[in-house]
């Protein structure tokens, strides 16, 4: 069981790190629809869905913190947003409904819109200038669309990271 746990953590760390690298390299140059996807947020949504509110929030917090390191917004802001989003997604999945297929993808897009708005509101509350201007709605909606498109890939990556290995499945 310990080995399985370590393997899951290693896979999660890999997914978090690859998402981070893509965000700060590839998606700095490539802006589909004029915006960059928010991969930390998308990862938080799927971590909450696949790992549950408890474990998902921790993974999302670390993904957000890694992203925070590269940005000039206050340290801890993306970490806070991501862990809240993952917790909310985890609670919804555990207590209400586990979405699949297109419903899961649409939910990811909608949750991304909510996450971007939540980030901007938190930043504005902390005194960051220009976060709640007219551009916020455009950015939030377009990030929702881009994250919607990338959601199946992220979902697959997180399912791979959380899946029990063949030996573990056989033992169970």
């Amino acid at each position, binding site marked *: 069981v310990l080995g399985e746990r370590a393997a899951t953590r290693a896979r999660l760390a890999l997914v978090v790190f690859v998402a981070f690298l893509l965000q700060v390299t*590839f998606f700095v140059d490539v802006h589909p629809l004029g915006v*960059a996807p928010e991969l930390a947020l998308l990862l938080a949504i799927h971590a909450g869905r696949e790992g549950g509110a408890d474990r998902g*929030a921790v993974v999302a917090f670390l993904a957000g913190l890694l992203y925070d390191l590269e940005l000039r917004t206050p340290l801890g802001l993306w*970490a806070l947003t991501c862990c*809240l989003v993952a917790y909310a997604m985890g609670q919804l999945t555990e207590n209400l409904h586990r979405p699949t297929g297109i419903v899961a993808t649409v939910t990811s897009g909608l949750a991304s819109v909510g996450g971007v708005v939540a*980030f901007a509101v938190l930043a504005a509350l902390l005194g960051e*200038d220009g976060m709640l201007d007219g551009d916020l709605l455009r950015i939030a909606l377009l990030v929702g669309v881009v994250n919607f498109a990338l959601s199946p890939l992220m979902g697959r990556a997180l399912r791979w990271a959380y899946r029990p290995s063949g030996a573990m499945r056989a033992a169970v």
Partner: protein
Amino acid sequence: VALPRRGGRARYRLGLLVLTAVTLLTLDFRGFGPLERAQSAARDLLAPVRSGAETVTSPIGDALRGVVDYGDLKDENAKLRAELEEARGQQLAGQAASEELARLKEQLDLPQLGDVERVVARVAAGPAGNFEENVVEIDKGSTSGLREGMPVMTNAGLVGKLVRVDRGRSVVELVTATDFAVGVRIGDEVALARGTGSGTSLRATEGLSRDNPAAVDEPVLTNGGAGSNFPPGVPVGRVSSIDKSSAVPVVDVALEADIQNLDYVTVLLYSPSEEN
């Protein structure tokens, strides 16, 4: 019985995470030195992996942009050719004027921009995410002698200043950033003003009077002076328009440097305390 216990543990852990985030935010706002150093050390640690990832992803990104922006690139190419022709014509006259200015400055014992040491750096990346505007990252850092606050320019003019310096990388805040400020002088009459970023250009306000608000097309240069991060005489741009409707005239400055398409920049190793 199992579900509430699990929910309780999740809430407890969420509480801890929120507390950690709030602590980090508080320390960050207070400019807690050890936290800033830890952040910088973590970025230095990640920098080689990031550079490796950039080497792999940037050709793909360039190819994608080339396909999507082909028409724009063609237009831009034609525009640049026309500008190059014009610049060739002006070069000779500019060179003569520069030499004359240098001789005059030498006679008056004024500091010259040419005396300031400089480091050339490549623009490694633009802003990450959707909430960072008017910043770029360059591939030189403290190991090349760079420090926070140092001015950054191209051959055309001022680009911005360093706001974050790690060992091998630095972040440049562009002149268009809303919290960017620089003392400038405008035109031959030498009207002094404070230039601040407006998001897309630079605006000069404070210091101008209605009687002498400068004129359109006049050159705008940094003023320098005691305590300024910028040496005097760095070209900034030209006056593009003047709004005299308010009590203090507002001058819009068309920047000389093309900050939308930066490839290489020059960092002036200028420290106000040493130079003044």
